């Protein structure tokens, strides 16, 4: 006796229909909560902010890159991929027919072609004209407004995290630190100065950066020797390098390097909150 009943024609038909069901279900669900706008987000920071607010887009730009760089909040199942950030797929958008497109203003292009598909909420995402944190807060408010929900939880959550960081810095008065993300080659790192999210967070909380400001985008690729030559303690988002030089310097105790959980350094308020908490932990360990 097999544990499975023999397949009859009727059974096969039922199976076929049930296979179709998942494809039909979202349409039904869509009809039910018709009041929530069906929207798409075309850039990582926009997707992150929307998901952190608790609303999910229909489709978002470059899902693999989101998973790799942002990761949290996790992408819900069934999200469509709009493709590369600089070229969201127009034809897919026409098929999806969203009520609203939330896009970054740098994606506008001379023709603002997205506007021919649906109303577009153009939002500033790059920290070129004003600080990244201001932009992140603004994004949270505007996306919440578009989704007819409140951004207060997200904003106050971040404020609390920032206050914790300020208190940690005030109480421990750490020396100037380097904020870095080491690269895969083990010989270089991106070092964050003011103008980047990590750099602005540190400066805003009263901390001192060992690398003077360079303006946006505030991330300089530096060699390991240049980094160590500053003699400043290192707070690294992500793993530390394992090479001979770095290991010897750290083992000698002449310099502290603290690995922190990886956080997207160009993210929105959710990333900023996690980054502030990570920095608080790091400052405590220096």
């Amino acid at each position, binding site marked *: 006796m097999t544990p499975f009943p023999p397949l009859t024609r009727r059974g096969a038909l039922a199976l076929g229909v049930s296979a179709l069901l998942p494809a039909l279900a979202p349409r039904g669900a869509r009809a039910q909560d018709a009041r929530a706008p069906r929207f798409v987000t075309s850039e990582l920071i926009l997707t992150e902010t929307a998901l952190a607010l608790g609303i999910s887009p229909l489709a978002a730009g470059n899902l693999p890159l989101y998973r790799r760089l942002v990761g949290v909040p996790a992408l819900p199942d069934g999200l469509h991929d709009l493709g590369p950030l600089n070229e969201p797929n127009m034809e897919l958008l026409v098929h999806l027919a969203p009520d609203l497109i939330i896009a970054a203003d740098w994606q506008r292009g001379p*023709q603002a072609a997205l506007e021919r598909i649906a109303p577009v909420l153009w939002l500033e995402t790059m920290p070129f004209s004003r600080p990244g944190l201001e932009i992140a807060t603004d994004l949270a408010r505007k996306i919440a407004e578009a989704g007819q929900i409140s951004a207060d939880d997200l904003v106050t959550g971040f404020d609390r995290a920032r206050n914790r960081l300020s208190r940690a810095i005030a109480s421990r008065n750490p020396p100037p630190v380097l904020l870095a993300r080491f690269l*895969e080659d083990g010989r270089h790192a*991106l070092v964050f100065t003011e103008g980047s999210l990590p750099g602005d967070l540190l400066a805003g909380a009263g901390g001192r950066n060992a690398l003077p400001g360079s303006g946006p985008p505030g991330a300089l690729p530096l060699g390991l020797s240049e980094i160590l030559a500053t003699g400043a303690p290192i707070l690294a988002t992500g793993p530390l390098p394992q090479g001979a030089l770095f290991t010897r310097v750290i083992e000698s105790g002449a310099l502290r390097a603290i690995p922190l959980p990886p956080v997207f350094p160009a993210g929105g308020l959710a990333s900023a909150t996690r980054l502030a908490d990570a920095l608080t932990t790091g400052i405590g360990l220096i």
Partner: protein
Amino acid sequence: MRALLILLPGLAALVLFALNAGTALPGRWPAAILWADPGDIPALILHLSAVPRLVTAALAGAALALAGALLQRVFRNPIAEPATLGITAGAQCALTLTLLNAPGLAPAWLPLPAFAGALAALALALALAALQGVSSLTLILSGLVVTTSLGGLNAVLTLFHHEVLQSLFLWQAGALEQEGWTSAARLAPALALALMLAPFARRPLEVLALGDQGARVLGLAPGGWRVILATAAVSLAALVTALTGVFAFLGIIAPLVARALTGRTPGTGAIAVTGAGILMLADQLVQLLRPWIPVQTGTLLALIGAVLMIALLRKSSQPAPEHLLPALPRRARPVPRLSLLLLGLLALFAVALAIGRGPEGWDISPLAMFDWRVPRVAGAAAAGAAFGLAGCLMQRLTGNPLASPELLGISGAAALGLVLAVVMTGGGGRGLLYGATSLGALAGLVLILAAGARLRFSSEGLLLAGLAVSMLLSAVLAMLLASGHPRAGQLMTWLSGSTYRIALSDAVIALSVTAALLGLALLLRRWLDLLPLGPNAARLLGLPLTRARASVVVLAALATAVGTILTGPPGFIGLIAPAIARFCGPPRASAQLPLATISGAALMVLADWLGRNLAFPWQIPAGMMALLCGGVFLMIFLARRPA
């Protein structure tokens, strides 16, 4: 005594090293070379970063110069280079794929995929060359096809994921930063082995220097020896590239400098010593300038090398033009197939406009998408037509079926013009971009032709000159990417050759300009019929040579610029479209020009349609799709050509 002058670059590098070390560690640096106190960070940096860096530069420089010297003798060409056989592109692709798919891989293992990629590219190039009978032209051509196609693949990957490829950009720019002795320890045995084996290559090299005929007479199989020696040299270079980074042109600069210093033809040992000195010197210079100019060693070397390479073309003496690739068979009694091709183009238009993929799979759609597809299809057609026309003009001009905007680096020069304009002005309007791109194409074409005329338009000379321009472009791009220049991402989108942003008005303007250029070219049809006969015959038949060449050059440059602005790299269309025209129609210019133009348009429309649908919802830019397909097409085509 003068032979000792080859030590000069190395000595200069050591003086600069002392200067750099003295700044970092006044008074204490000599001691720190040998030993560093564990708690003394500056001393540790010197001991475990600066000193290994100097040694790595010396080893890498010697190995690359040695490999270059060997290849130049194998190819009997003073500007052959390890990169000629595709290793840089192969290593690059493998490294990109590794960084994207295995981000957690330990740094010590990263050179392994890079080395494997380089060797795979080399194997592909050799296999292609072997299928046609190994000669120095087939080797260079195969290497170039492999390099360009892999370059296209890599550009797609980089474009989509440049946010996570910072390591790749630094490697590409030739950053020599070290974190211990790992790289040096891996390079040293390979270089030692190569130096030990080098004397055994002397006799075959001497025989190869007599030419293939001479070698055969002396009982040596020239093809086999070429493959063995080239493989050995390129493997060594591949190892260096994988372990340290991209240092283009070193193999060309080193023999040149050695000859200039000693005043005679240098031996392999002398070239290796000079190469070591040059790389050390360049690297110390970069460290000295670092506070003011954040340039990496490989970039500095490439900038110097490209200039030298183009200048050097003057001095080489080349055999007469070789007509090796008109190889698609010519019809005995050619039937004009213009109408058939036009019909095919119309059918392609229909497919490209009506069929596409949506979230639920393929659909034959509806007018709904026409709005979105018309500008893209029209833009692709305009660009392809322009490239087809440019290729046809250049082949007529040089009498060489390999002449085309991509292989001669004209499109690279056009792109360079665009890049420089954007970086210097920080954006700029359409007019400026068109102007800069046209100017770049024109400068590139004049430069290549000036060099090419001295070489009597031989295929090898033209191809290598084109390679120099392409490498210059990649060096400049690598520098921008490695420095995290805020415009880098935007530039890559431009250079990717996407039809995404083409407005209908742009496409219409480009189509009209291309049609006008075709019309002008048709007015020159008598000149274009005579030019391929060579300067002497043409002059005898009453051709005003200078005026004719200048007019055709300007037309070809304008056509290349039109295409480059719209879709970036021509993706072999400038090479393939004229080949199709030769297959389809009579050899008269009045027939070939429209045929090449139409074939070009059809190919690019096809590439755009494939690019939009193959990876839906991701879109592979038309220019890159054309490059990938064109590369595969050329490989098959080369492979099928009887020896």
